[in-house]
């Protein structure tokens, strides 16, 4: 390692995984620097969960190699497991054990010292100290996810793999959750978190976008937006939101989507795009060019990669 090369917490190359004849993860390369939060995005079924599982040794890649925390993810899977916290997409704590019992179980499995103290501290941090005797299965969605996070971090891992940790969680609980993730990253943890929420993607240091098993965009949000070469026009005025149908058929328009009463029309060919909206450059509509949002970019990426399917 040269002194200037970054300190990768995750550094995997060319991961492949097939189920039957379905190539679910295709040549995926992911690098995340230590202490950073990387958002893992992609449509349903694009292979996010499968990739995360390969990183923590739950699935064996068909090919590809790499390291997590300096350990080979295939040959030293046990060492990786010991230092990684993994939060599954589906709630997978024991619903018939209490909150405290779930934490105690995890503490024992990882052979932690000062168990009582750690569990108490985790409960304190969660704000669940008074409800420690409640069955985990009876918690609401948001609390379940926070408990799962507390469990996944109990053994003080260096790497956190979170699989859609905030799906079905209300905005306030989501914010609390992300505050916790940032607090953990500030302590030096590396986080790879999959999500479908754009606001969450924007809270990450960097993002990786996967579609149909291929990694098609990487970098900070600004880099991904810039790399997309996307141009977006914002149209306002009464009934502007209803233009989507007509506009999306026009040549040069890659996506046209209503944003409340306004509309976002995007494409990568400026001339064609301007030609497409020309018929509507009249009263009562007002048009302005805006920087594309991550969502515009992702919808465009999704559309493109679909066309790429052999």
């Amino acid at each position, binding site marked *: 390692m040269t002194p200037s090369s970054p300190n990768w917490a995750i550094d995997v190359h060319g991961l492949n995984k097939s189920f039957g004849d379905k190539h679910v993860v295709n040549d995926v390369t992911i690098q995340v620097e230590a202490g950073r939060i990387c958002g893992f995005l992609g449509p349903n079924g694009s292979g996010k969960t499968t990739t995360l599982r390969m990183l*923590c040794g739950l699935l064996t890649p068909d090919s590809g190699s790499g390291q997590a925390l300096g350990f080979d993810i295939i040959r030293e899977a046990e060492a990786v*497991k010991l230092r990684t916290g993994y939060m*599954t997409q*589906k709630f*997978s704590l024991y619903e018939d054990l209490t909150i405290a019992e779930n934490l105690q179980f995890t503490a024992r499995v*990882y052979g932690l010292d000062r168990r009582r103290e750690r569990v108490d501290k985790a409960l304190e941090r969660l704000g669940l100290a008074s409800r420690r005797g409640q069955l985990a299965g009876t918690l609401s969605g948001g609390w379940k996810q926070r408990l799962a996070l507390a469990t996944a971090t109990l053994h003080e891992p260096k790497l956190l793999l979170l699989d859609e940790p905030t799906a079905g969680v209300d905005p306030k609980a989501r914010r609390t959750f992300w505050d916790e993730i940032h607090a953990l990253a500030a302590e030096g943890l590396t986080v790879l978190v999959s999500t479908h929420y754009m606001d969450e993607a924007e809270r990450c240091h960097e993002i990786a976008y996967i579609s149909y098993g291929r990694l098609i965009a990487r970098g900070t949000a600004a880099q991904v937006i810039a790399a997309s070469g996307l141009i977006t026009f914002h149209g306002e005025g009464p009934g502007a939101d209803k233009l989507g149908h007509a506009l999306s058929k026009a040549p040069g328009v890659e996506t046209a989507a209503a944003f409340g009463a306004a509309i976002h029309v995007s494409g990568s060919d400026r001339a064609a795009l301007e030609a497409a909206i020309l018929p509507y450059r009249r009263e009562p509509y007002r048009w302005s060019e805006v920087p594309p949002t991550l969502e515009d970019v992702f919808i465009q990426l999704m559309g493109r990669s679909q066309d790429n399917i052999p």
Partner: protein
Amino acid sequence: MIGLSLNRVLAVLIKEFKQLTRDRVTYAMMLAIPVVQLTLFGYAINSDPRHLPTAVLAQEDSRYARSLVSALKNSDYFDFVAQARSPAELDEMIRRGEVQFAVTIPGDFSRRVARGDQAQLLVEADATDPSATSGAVAALAALPDQALAHDLTGALAMRGQAVKPFEVIVHRRYNPEAITAYNIVPGLLGIILSLTLVMMTALSVTRETERGTMETLLATPLEPLEVMAGKLAPYVMVGLVQTAIILAMAATLFHVPMSGGWLGLSAGIGLFITGSLALGFLISTVARSQLQAMQMSFFYILPSILLSGFMFPFRGMPAWAQWIGEAIPVTHFLRVVRGSLLKGQGIGDQWRELAALGAFVCVVTALAMARYRRTLD
């Protein structure tokens, strides 16, 4: 309140049927259980066993003795497999369970027959399982009239018709009053332990898979053997408590003799509980759902009841069924339990059964470890 609708019933019915056919294993089991089990048990079970292994101690070598042995053979109930040289050796053979019957032809048999002086033939039966010997014992009644018919001539023959030339003394050993409970109650220990232990552990891993908790479990540094040991240990306690209850009830309510053999019995109980739990764990690594796990356990329990010698005499089964029976741990466990409680066998008499149980534990544990998946692949 809305009325009942046939269409809605049909909707549920069709859904259920589709779900049923989608679970291949369950579907196959439902067809296989009646076919396999019926063929198995229909041909295997025989409540009037013949060709029972018999040892003879002939204290005289005479024409009469040879005639007696061949008459016993001709009855179809007795197969002479061993010749004892002393009463002690004969006794050991029946205690170890190598033979079902021990026949003693006394040294003065011919002389007494010739003199018409109350000649006796001694037949000892291992009556731990009364049903295994009852047919054979009944057949002995006809022996004095027929056995020596060709050998007795002249005056002896004449007398033979009036007075029987000898009498058969039958000793039902280990269970002289032929009390069925003496046989069934110790046997139940094996069956009850199998039922609860195999079923309970068969669900243990499948439940984790079904509830999704397996994914978290696999992401931890737990080793397969650690998971197995941790999951099985509580049930070892369950098994020991059950054993204590059953033995206490056997002694107090059913007055089953407790003849000793505690060392062998303890070893047998330990091995059997471990083996049953390991088998349950193996099932749970194969089954994909709790339903499948239940069915597989059931598939194991039936032969344990029917082919182990619990319900029907082991020696009454055809050779192929005995082979299957030998592969079932309950068979060996029953021999240890009955041997200890009823016969007071020592560990020297039981080492073969204990070794079989030990081998079962090792094989099943190895298979379970090989089957246990460390990943979700």
